[in-house]
């Protein structure tokens, strides 16, 4: 990807999606309302979730054959961008992107029919449990084990920081059915009822106002029909889910920086010190200009990555890694600058800008931080050269 494939144009339908999302969220998801949702502590607002379903967002990326809208990863990115700006906390990533899209890709007809209509309608929620206490960012480092038993499997192990786990109906759990701890082969995915015997959750809030949990599986029995996709062959599914998860996070990150810039500009326009609005201080103007530049650079890289992923470009994986690294580095710096440029008000929970920083930090710590992503970027670049 070094030439004309860098030109990303949105279709009229995509612009409509952007507009609709922006309009709805501006009206229905103001910062005060958002804070009230977080304070309620119930993993997003049920009414909003119904709205999302009604607008077709819960089925946006799902195949039309499963009742979805057949949207692309780029569509998903654009929706996530709007979520990011509004700091929406509903468990869209876990239910739709990581959960339902994996069911759609890996599930058999029965599994898809059992799960997806409920997701699309807003009745069913999913969570994706593929991180473990010792895995760090390496999703294929799986110690949870599933052994065959009778007509099904028995799962035992720990999953960490499972987003949306406590409100999910079903958990997608990766478990080792063969192979050594870090072997690519021998990982399988299972659909586990959140309330199944042997499943224990320790739920908690997250720094960015969402809900997650530590999940303990102690001899959890599931049937043969709980196996999602090929036995031993889930690695590629997990990686695909991760890639689509990253696309979503990149969208949110762009939205966060847009929001952070917008509130900084607004604040500087209105706040007076030394008898003048802050927007008239050149040192601050120049730093706000740099904030704009960082936002635009981030938008360009993330949009490109989403586009490349949607189009199946050969350079897509590297573009995703590069954009993820960038968000963790330049995105974090930009969000910190936005905080600094506000002064004291920014360090309170009552004001919006600090929450953009929190979300950017959380985004960096999901699916590989700056360093992990940069390593991957370099490795993929080297592989492409060879």
């Amino acid at each position, binding site marked *: 990807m070094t030439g004309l494939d860098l030109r990303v144009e949105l279709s009229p339908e995509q612009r409509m999606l952007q507009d609709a999302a922006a309009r709805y969220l501006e009206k229905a998801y103001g910062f005060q309302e958002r804070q009230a949702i977080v304070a309620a502590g119930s993993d997003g607002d049920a009414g909003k979730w119904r709205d999302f379903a009604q607008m077709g967002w819960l089925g946006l990326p799902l195949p039309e054959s499963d009742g979805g809208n057949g949207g692309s990863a780029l569509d998903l990115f654009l929706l996530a961008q709007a979520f990011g700006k509004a700091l929406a906390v509903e468990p869209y990533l876990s239910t739709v992107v990581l959960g339902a899209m994996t069911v759609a890709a890996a599930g058999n007809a029965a599994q898809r029919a059992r799960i997806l209509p409920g997701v699309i309608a807003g009745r069913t929620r999913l969570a994706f449990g593929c991180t473990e206490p010792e895995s760090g960012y390496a999703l294929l480092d799986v110690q949870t084990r599933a052994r065959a038993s009778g007509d099904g499997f028995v799962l035992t192990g720990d999953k960490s920081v499972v987003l949306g786990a406590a409100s999910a109906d079903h958990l997608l759990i990766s478990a080792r059915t063969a192979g050594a701890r870090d072997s690519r082969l021998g990982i399988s995915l299972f659909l586990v009822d959140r309330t199944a015997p042997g499943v224990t959750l320790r739920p908690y809030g997250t720094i960015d106002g969402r809900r997650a949990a530590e999940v303990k599986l102690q001899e959890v029995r599931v049937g043969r029909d709980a196996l999602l996709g090929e036995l031993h062959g889930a690695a590629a599914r997990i990686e695909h889910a991760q890639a689509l998860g990253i696309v979503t996070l990149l969208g949110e990150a762009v939205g966060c920086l847009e929001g952070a810039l917008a509130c900084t500009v607004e604040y500087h326009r209105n706040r007076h010190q030394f008898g003048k609005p802050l927007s008239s201080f050149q040192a601050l103007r120049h730093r706000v200009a740099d904030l704009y530049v960082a936002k635009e650079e981030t938008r360009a890289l993330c949009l490109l990555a989403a586009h490349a992923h949607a189009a199946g470009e050969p350079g897509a994986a590297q573009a995703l890694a590069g954009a993820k690294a960038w968000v963790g580095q330049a995105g974090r710096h930009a969000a910190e600058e936005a905080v600094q440029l506000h002064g004291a008000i920014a360090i309170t929970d009552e004001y919006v800008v*600090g929450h953009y920083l929190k979300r950017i*930090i959380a985004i960096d710590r999901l699916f590989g931080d700056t360093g992990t992503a940069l390593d991957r970027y370099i490795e993929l670049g080297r592989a492409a050269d060879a």
Partner: protein
Amino acid sequence: MTAVPGTQQPLTDLEDFRREVRAFLAANLSPALAERVKAGFYLDKPELDRWQRALHARGWAGTNWPPEHGGPGWTPMQKYVFEDECAQAGAPILIMMGLNQVAALLMAAGTEDQKRRHLPRILDGSDLWCQGLSEPNSGSDLASLKCPAWREGDEYVVDGSKIWTTAAHWANWCFLLVRTSSDGPKQEGITILLLDMKTPGITIRPIIGLDGMHSLNQLFLDKVRIPVSCRVGEEGRGWPLMKYFLGHERISAAGIWKCKAHFARLTKIARETRRDGRPLIENPRFRDRMAWLEIRMRALEVILLSIIGDSAKAKGAEGALLKLRGTELQQEMLAMMSEACGPYAVPFHPEVLRSGWTGEHVGPEFAATATPFYLFWRKSTISGGSSEIMRNVIAQNLYP
């Protein structure tokens, strides 16, 4: 021709003093408390009070105080050693508003009665002070403050609001800046009052921080009546006295000692945390960043030692430099601790931070505090003179 400067004798004395401080810390600071301080857990007021009593019993509470007021009469280098050792050991960090700024002001400009009334109680920890300086519309431009006060008989009546007041919910006294006149330049007409927090008419609104915790407050003063005897200096002449607040404490605010303690902790975390099959400290990128932090920290410590005891420099460009870069270093160290958590940076349960919480935390122990700590200390480049103000101060010194 010339030799290495001969500071051997005083250095030896200081090493003796350092041993004395260490012995005190070993005897008085419990390892469990020290661990919690280093990890950034919140302490409650009784814990802070206990520590101040221990210091006071040893005669070490007012480190900057002259002996005639009960201070230890230390040299600047002794203070440096004391602060350094306390930070390394994880001693509780007291709320210094009373001990440093208010005390300095009273010693310089308080009436004998004010000194007698307040200084001993500040020193022994009976009184905790907060400050009412900033207002919703007066931050960096502090002299533009508006909080009106007017004289009625032997009292001032204050009717306004103050914000970003640390520990107002704990304090029993407040150092207050009010406007008694709006004529003339904004620096004139500012009066300093000492406010007993039990006075009727005070409402405290907690301000929850990004770390989910309560340390800041907004004060609403609804026709609060303060006796004229609680005025420091003349009416309308408070601004010139503000030098005891502004600039004075840049060196503590720079927190070079804190940096060193954070760095030691970061090193420990980076050694103990495995990522990609090796300790984080073996990750070339992480290791490089740590090396740069260490180098930058070293530079600041050399600068600090070169101006120690020189209060003009401490208030001038050098002090501003230390505040500017010292707080940046701290922030970067805290950011790296949060990074070291990996996905465990995401869980957030502020109840863990509170004193007395005994539940089980999620992920590695340091993860419980690392990210809230990082978020909370974004304020270090904002409060106590923001980085922007520090650059203004430096530029002012370059173009006098």
